């Protein structure tokens, strides 16, 4: 087997997931991207994006992301309530005097505006968040930010994913924690999913959640065990029992904790850490190749 010396030719989209925040999901995503020759890092954790704190990207391009929501012209609305009955999401209510529109419940289907017989509803753009794109050495950094109070980051994530590496190249997607629809959206286009797990019983519970999600989507996946100590690791046992490949282990060590707390990228600070994430990258790439071989 050929020994890899570079990450050229690594052409894959990896989604990094965990059942809750703080398990090392961002640590793994940021460092895998940093260890590659060239990569695109996409932060889909739009409620709490923090990948940019590590990358400190420059040359930022900012764009607003908006959705379409209906507005009512009260002079035209005759209170027929056709729109209220129609809206599957119950984003509309009529009090007898006026129509109320709950823009944060609205899913922008556009149906009510089409349907209103009085043409009282029109759509207007509402900004729900933004995307910032910048460069940090070898990594193009894409961060999505959802405005507080907005229900759904999905329109932001969809747009962010359109900035994935085209053709050749590595894309690392830092997913929102949990297994709700926003996490599903983030893994939709991924070739491979990495589940990050902590070595506790609670960690196993969280791992089980995302494990179910990736199985549901039929995505190939493997686990990275974070904060590993000498003692027994319930998450490792779970992987062995379930036959999940363990792609790598990150030790629990003071230096990692300190560098991480200082928002420094391990792979850029020390050779040993770079090697660690480099081999994780190669292990993952082999798994992806393996899957492709099975598929064909």
């Amino acid at each position, binding site marked *: 087997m050929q020994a890899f010396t570079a990450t050229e030719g690594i052409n894959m989209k990896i989604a990094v997931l965990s059942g809750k925040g703080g398990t090392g999901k961002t640590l793994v995503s940021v460092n895998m991207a940093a260890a590659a020759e060239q990569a695109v890092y996409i932060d889909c954790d739009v409620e709490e994006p923090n990948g940019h704190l590590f990358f400190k990207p420059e040359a930022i391009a900012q764009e607003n992301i908006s959705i379409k929501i209906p507005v009512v012209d009260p002079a035209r609305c005759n209170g027929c309530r056709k729109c209220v009955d129609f809206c599957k999401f*119950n*984003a509309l209510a*009529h009090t007898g005097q*006026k129509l109320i529109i*709950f823009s944060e419940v609205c*899913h922008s289907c556009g149906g009510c505006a089409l349907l209103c017989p009085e043409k009282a509803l029109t759509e207007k753009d509402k900004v729900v968040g933004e995307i910032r794109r910048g460069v940090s050495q070898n990594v193009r950094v894409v961060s999505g930010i959802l405005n507080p109070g907005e*229900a*759904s980051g999905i329109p932001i994530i969809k747009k962010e994913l359109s900035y994935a590496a085209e053709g050749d190249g590595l894309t690392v997607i830092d997913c929102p924690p*949990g297994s709700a629809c926003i*996490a599903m959206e983030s893994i939709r286009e991924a070739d491979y999913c990495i589940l990050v797990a902590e070595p506790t019983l609670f960690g196993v519970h969280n791992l089980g959640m995302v494990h179910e999600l990736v199985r549901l989507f039929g995505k190939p996946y493997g686990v990275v065990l974070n904060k590993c100590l000498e003692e027994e690791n319930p998450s490792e046992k779970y992987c062995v029992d379930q036959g999940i490949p363990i792609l790598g282990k990150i030790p629990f060590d003071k230096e990692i904790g300190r560098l991480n707390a200082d928002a420094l990228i391990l792979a850029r600070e020390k050779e040993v850490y770079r090697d660690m994430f480099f081999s994780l990258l190669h292990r993952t790439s082999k798994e992806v190749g393996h899957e492709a071989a099975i598929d064909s």
Partner: protein
Amino acid sequence: MKIAVPADDRSMESNVCISFGRTPYFLIYDTETGESAFLENTAAEKHCGAGIAAAQTVVDSGAAVLLTPRCGENAAEVIQAANIKLFKTFNGSLQDNLDAYQEGKLPVLQEIHAGLHGHGGN
């Protein structure tokens, strides 16, 4: 005047339902005729916006007063925009709460809880 109360079941002895949006029924009590009717809450099974749809049911019933243990902010916006007054129930039967209201013993509902945004999944 009509009074609406979320109800666990279709009887005056049943308890006030602890959930406004997901209550199976609404009691609509008419103070003038003394008649009570039970409306089904079609919103109970809805995935999103159950509170808003439940509020629409209450508005459509013509109630002037809503007695409920709690109420989400979206539902409260509809209820308040329709000039329906909100009072807080205690743990007990529909009848007990109606009596307490008519004796002026129920407090105005102050705390409106933030809606459960997001779309479930966790």
